[in-house]
């Protein structure tokens, strides 16, 4: 018995690592082949409710009932931006804020800043009327300008609605 124990303790256990290495290489090959680093993408988070009526009178009042009211936009909480694009190229042809035409993105930004800087402004959401032919990247420039605006309560403007306008 003592002899047997001696023999066992003396014998070396040799693991065959070749099979394990084969398997490890196969796993490595799989991971290398399936490795596709995704590009770093950004995002603009929005709340897009379905478009509603442009003018919402909060406290319905008959015209002329309040003679002291000098603010004709009282009760209006949606600002309309119009984006008209060229039907062929899809590039923006003209821009408008409400009834006012603006000449470009910088002017649009300036106008929106002016509107939202007014502490008494009633706008808390924006409806963007867009030509159906407008390219997505052109539209995103407008969305970019809109989402940079800060509401009087300090929140960033994130409530937008899109309305499709037939081009032509």
């Amino acid at each position: 018995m003592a002899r047997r124990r001696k023999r066992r303790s003396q014998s070396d256990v040799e693991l065959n690592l070749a099979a394990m290495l084969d398997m490890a290489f196969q796993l490595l090959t799989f991971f290398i082949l399936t490795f596709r680093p995704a590009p770093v993408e950004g995002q603009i988070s929005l709340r897009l409710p379905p478009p509603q009526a442009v003018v919402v009178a909060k406290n319905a009042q008959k015209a002329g009932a309040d003679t002291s009211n000098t603010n004709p936009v009282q009760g209006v909480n949606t600002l309309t931006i119009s984006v008209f694009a060229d039907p062929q190229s899809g590039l923006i042809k003209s821009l408008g804020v409400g009834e006012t035409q603006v000449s470009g993105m910088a002017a649009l930004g300036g106008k929106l800043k002016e509107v939202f800087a007014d502490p008494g402004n009633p706008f808390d959401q924006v409806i963007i009327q867009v030509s159906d032919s407008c390219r997505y990247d052109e539209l995103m420039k407008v969305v970019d300008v809109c989402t940079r605006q800060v509401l009087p309560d300090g929140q960033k403007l994130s409530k937008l609605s899109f309305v499709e306008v037939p081009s032509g």
Partner: protein
Amino acid sequence: MAQLSQEVKAEPNLTPILDMVFQLITFFMLVINFKSAEMDLSIRLPVVGSARPVETHGQRGLLVLNIDQNGNLKNYGGIVQNVESYIAREAYASRLAAHINADDKEAAQDLPTTIVIRADRATSFKMINRVIKACQDNGFLKFTLKAMNKEA
């Protein structure tokens, strides 16, 4: 002499190479991203300066919609033929998940799932609006528009 040389066995020590391979496997396992399978990397996103890095904090479910420049809605490489029914199915699943989560009070108002729109920069608004409208009709209100911070 010749007999002696035949008996010599070359047994390389495989332990270091196995260690290295396991380290490589660990690296690839950690960086692998199965979510990228749902993104169509052939889509050229628009470049928008104010696009923020992706934040998934607070977002409970994402539905990624890839729209190519022809207006086709793509899902895991395949084109979705019936967009409206596909989105309606997803809305049903989202609503069901929200109801299972009983403490989800927000679900009563609108669906908790965020729609992630990855559209090609050349896609016309008409095509994108079709998808957005289908989502809105089914109760999705939270949207995320994907864009690049700078030209790749």
